[in-house]
């Protein structure tokens, strides 16, 4: 069995996969809104740490994997906040500045504080979303969207796209291996050519596969509506109480 290290595979291995996806979504969304809405530093730190603890200790994801995943948004945040931290002025200002022809680039205390708050807020929000996606398989999240009355067209498309990502990835891996074995990635030029060829082929194969899938679906009485039986995961009283307690704690923290 081939397992790719993806968010998807982590979700299937999570120990809190069995918890009702609606409950997890409510907790994650509420925590996220709390952080963004209040902008409270203490709240952000609390959410960031508690969500990390839930994902790692309750979900059973290894710390290394979790940190590796957190690194992705950090990169974007550092690049994004750089613009906020650095100010432009015509006169020397701030704690630290660089002289440029015609103006000054400066770094102020307020700017740094703002950036720190922003990073904390964003990381807290990311960790809340990670808690959800690292413990809930994509199909359950899509089902949840369906229950929230997201148009059927969109949720069905999401379902099919999700499945096809893996089907096409498989095709691409095989084509790439075949190209590699014929020295298709020998140097930059051949790599470009192989890449282009694989891309073009993937497109044709997608069309062909779409036809075959349609036949297979028709053979099973498909009539234009994608219907699956959903696994019921009832909310357990203990879990609901824990979620309510957690949210109450956040609220209290903000009020105090």
């Amino acid at each position, binding site marked *: 069995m081939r397992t790719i290290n993806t968010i998807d595979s982590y979700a299937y291995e999570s120990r809190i996969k069995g918890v009702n996806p609606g409950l997890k979504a409510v907790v994650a969304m509420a925590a996220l809104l709390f952080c963004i809405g209040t902008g409270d530093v203490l709240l952000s730190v609390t959410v960031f740490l508690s969500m990390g603890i839930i994902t790692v200790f309750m979900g059973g994801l290894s710390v290394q994997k979790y940190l590796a995943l957190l690194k992705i948004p950090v990169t974007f945040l550092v690049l994004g906040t750089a613009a906020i931290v650095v100010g432009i002025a015509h006169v020397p200002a701030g704690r630290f500045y660089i002289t440029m022809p015609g103006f000054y680039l400066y770094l102020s205390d307020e700017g740094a504080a703002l950036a720190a708050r922003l990073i904390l807020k964003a990381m807290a929000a990311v960790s809340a979303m990670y808690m959800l996606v690292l413990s809930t*398989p994509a199909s359950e999240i899509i089902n949840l969207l369906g229950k929230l009355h997201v148009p059927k067209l969109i949720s069905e498309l999401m379902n*099919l796209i999700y*499945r096809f990502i893996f*089907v096409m990835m498989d095709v691409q891996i095989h084509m790439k291996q075949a190209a590699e074995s014929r020295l298709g990635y020998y140097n930059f030029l051949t790599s470009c050519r192989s890449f282009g060829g694989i891309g073009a082929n993937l497109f044709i194969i997608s069309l062909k596969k779409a036809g*075959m899938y349609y036949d*297979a679906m028709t053979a*099973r*009485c498909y009539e234009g509506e994608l*219907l699956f039986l959903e696994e019921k995961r009832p909310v357990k009283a203990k879990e609901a109480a824990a979620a309510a307690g957690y949210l109450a704690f956040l609220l209290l923290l903000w009020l105090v």
Partner: protein
Amino acid sequence: MMEEILLQAENLSYSYGTGSKALYDVSLSVRKGEKIAVLGSNGAGKSTCFLNLNGVLIPDTGTIRYKGKKIGKKDLNELRRKVGIVFQDADNQIIASTVSAEVSFGPMNLRLSKEEVKQRVEMALKSMNLMMLKDRPPHYLSGGEKKRVSIADIIAMEPEVIIFDEPTASLDPVNVEMLTQVLDKMTEMGKTLLISTHDVDFAYKWAERAVVFAGGTIIADGPVTDILTSDLILNQGNLKKPVLMEVYDSLVKCRILPEMSPYFRDTKELNQLLNRQYEG
């Protein structure tokens, strides 16, 4: 007494788009409980014929009957319900993102009650030994497991006739063995089976009747031993003689077995035959 005729095709012809005819003048009747091997080289029309028999493709001319009733446009879903196809490549059949959702797709389309669907999914998963994997997404399954899922898909719809399109093509020997057991189980359950294959040895061992396609039409239809002993049919159908039949011929030629010995379908039958010959 002959069993009743379930599925019947009369003078089917079909062409894809503007191209040449993929099927012409195909007539076939399938009786309840039969085990039919559908043989023929690539592009001989087997898969196209199957898609017609299940109502996915609509024949240009000719009719399909189920239990004597002519299938019109309105009866297509009825036909698809009674005749299931397990496609050659499981990856071209599996659409859902978990095994149990996948198996539920067919029964859900039949608009059965949730309870009934649940029951059928469970039954199908159990019969294919898939209960352990029911929450797994299909992309984390092995080839053999995917094949089992694609068979469970069809079992859950409870069809009377099940068509397998080259089921042995991408399976390793262990999984072929598994498949053979599944097929035997289905025969016990009273299902009628049609299997297309290139593997004449498998066909000879498993089937009772063989249908040979060549160039878009049926060139031979009869008991599997008759078909596979005819050099003419084997030639026309681009087929090879099963190894066990070659062995039979050699044994008879070397006078180890007498001229009119019965054919043996596996090594066990051969051993019995030899034992009887030399000990009795």
